[in-house]
Structure formats: structure tokens, C-alpha cells
């Protein structure tokens, strides 16, 4: 049996007798120290999906009391109507809700801006329900494709 560690560290590939399985393995949670000055987070994606690695990284930010803005720029397929896709986006929603609910958060709260490209008619209301229930604000602005 060969155990390899691919780039996405939440998945191990086990190769045994010509068969390959992918097994999700829970990882120890990482806690970054409080990011006391962090005001803006910008995330640039090149596919509709978001990787487990990125969700892990965002989730490791447990305290950012000055954070006021998180921006996601990402592509959408023309005509996509059901969004967001399930899976890792749920983890992002939970992370945003947790930060929104932080005691000591600066007035004005946390705003998430979605910047899909090239354009689209997606149903943005489906985005980040937990975050919005926690009082977070969501805005959408179409963007140009990154160079």
C-alpha cells in the first residue's frame, strides 16, 4: 500500500492492488493568533469551487476584530442558476458567521462582496445564509476577468 500526500492536504490517496480510493481525513484544526489589524481579505478564485485548503486556511482565522470586508472574485458559468454549490462553501459561510458574531467587532459589521465574472444571472440570495442570519451584509458586483 502506498500512501501519498497530494497538494490538497485534506485528501490522501491510497493505492492498493491497482485500485485507488480517495479518503477525506479530518485534519487538526489550526488556530492563527488574533489578527488585530486585519481590515480586508480578498480572495481570488479561478474556478467556481473553493478548495478545502482555502477553507481550512480561512477557518484558521479565529479572531480579526477589525475585519470589515471580505471579497470573493470568481468565475461563474453562463446560465448558472443554483448557487452556491454545496460543499466547501458551507465552511466559508460558517467562518464568516463566526467572525460576524465576534464580540468586540468594530461597528459597521462585516460586509462580504461577491465579484463574479464575466457576468451572469445566478441566484445570489442563496449565498452564505448563516452569515446573513448572523447580521452580515452581502453585496454583489460583477467584475472583469483577472488578467
Amino acid at each position, binding site marked *: 500500500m502506498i500512501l501519498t500526500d497530494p497538494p490538497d492536504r485534506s485528501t490522501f490517496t491510497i493505492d492498493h492492488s491497482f485500485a485507488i480510493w480517495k479518503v477525506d481525513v479530518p485534519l487538526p484544526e489550526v488556530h492563527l493568533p488574533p489578527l488585530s489589524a486585519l481590515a480586508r481579505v480578498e480572495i481570488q478564485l479561478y*474556478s467556481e469551487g473553493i478548495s478545502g485548503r482555502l477553507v481550512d486556511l480561512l477557518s484558521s482565522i479565529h479572531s480579526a476584530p477589525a475585519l470589515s470586508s471580505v471579497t470573493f472574485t470568481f*468565475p461563474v458559468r453562463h446560465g448558472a442558476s443554483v448557487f452556491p454549490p454545496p460543499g466547501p462553501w458551507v465552511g466559508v459561510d460558517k467562518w464568516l458567521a463566526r467572525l460576524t458574531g465576534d464580540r468586540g467587532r468594530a461597528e459597521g459589521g462585516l460586509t462580504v462582496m461577491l465579484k463574479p465574472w464575466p457576468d451572469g444571472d445566478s441566484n445570489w440570495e442563496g449565498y452564505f445564509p448563516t452569515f446573513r442570519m448572523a447580521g452580515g451584509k452581502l453585496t454583489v458586483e460583477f467584475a472583469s476577468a483577472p488578467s
Partner: protein
Amino acid sequence: MVLWDANVPKDPDGIPSYVHHVQIRNIRFWDNPAIFGRVLKTFSSVESLTMAGANIPPLDEVLGPVSFGKFGKGLTSLTLFSQSCTLATITSFILSLSNLEELFIEHVGTMSEEPLSTLPDTSRREPLRWLVLQEVPNALGAALVQYRFTCNSLDLDVRTHAVESLIALSSETLVKLSLQGRRFVCVFGEK
């Protein structure tokens, strides 16, 4: 570059001091590595240096024994794009720039990971205003952590090996964090 170098010895004081940016492109191997050092020494007004497809020559060949912190004092911005020199060379050069404010490193190939020589304590260095690491080898991210580089704005490819450590080091100074996912070609517009 060659023409400029040929003229410098004739009139070393005649170099105009209004040159603020130097860009060196597509020099993988230096026939005369000393030219590189002369550029930085002669143009005392240079504030930013871009090396695009041009490798940094080993500093001991450029300058002799390097006096860290006394070299490239005016340089505040360094861009390294498409490098393939050794880890020791690249880190030695970065560490030699004591007033660096912006550091952009993108598309650096696999580099030899020979042990770094003993270098100065950089823990008291001012935070960089902006640090960008995109598609760099793990060893380079780890080296920046080893030398405790902090920053105000951090722009990272999430595949960078030392992402968490770089963020943690800047926990008190980081104002803006930009993260990029895996880049690949997407096709749109099919109806």
C-alpha cells in the same frame, strides 16, 4: 546593458541620478556578474529593481564579501519574476536590502535547497508594506519565515507552503490579506 557598462568606467559620475527604476530582463547567466553590482552601486537613486527572467548572480561574485545592510540602501521595491537561482542567493540578496518596503516574488522555479549560511538577525526589520508570493518553491516561503519577515499587506498563492506561518508572523501588522486559489484555464460562454 553592455553599452551602458562600457560607458560607465569612462565617466562614472556622469550617470544621471534621476533613474529610479531598473529592470533587468532575460539574463540567465552573467558573463560578467560584476555588472549587476555596478548597476546598484552606480545608480544611487534607484528605488525599485525588477528582475524578470534574469537570475541574481551570487553576491560574493558581485561584490566580494557583502556587508549586510550597507548594500542597495536606496532600494525599497524588489520584483523577482521567473527566477531560477539558488535559495541562498535569493535570500542573501533580499536580506542585503535593509530598507526594502515591497517584495514581489512570482514564478520561481525549483531551487536547490542547500543550507543557508549564517545571516543577520532580521527580527527588528520594519514590516514590509507589501509582500507578494505567487508560485514559489516551499523552501523560499520557509526562508522568509525563518528570517521573520512581517508585512502590512500579504498576497499569497494558497499553495505556498508556509502560508499560515507567514500570516501568524504578521499577526500584529497585517492589514490586508489577499489569497489566490489554483489557477487554470476556464472556458465560458457556451450556451
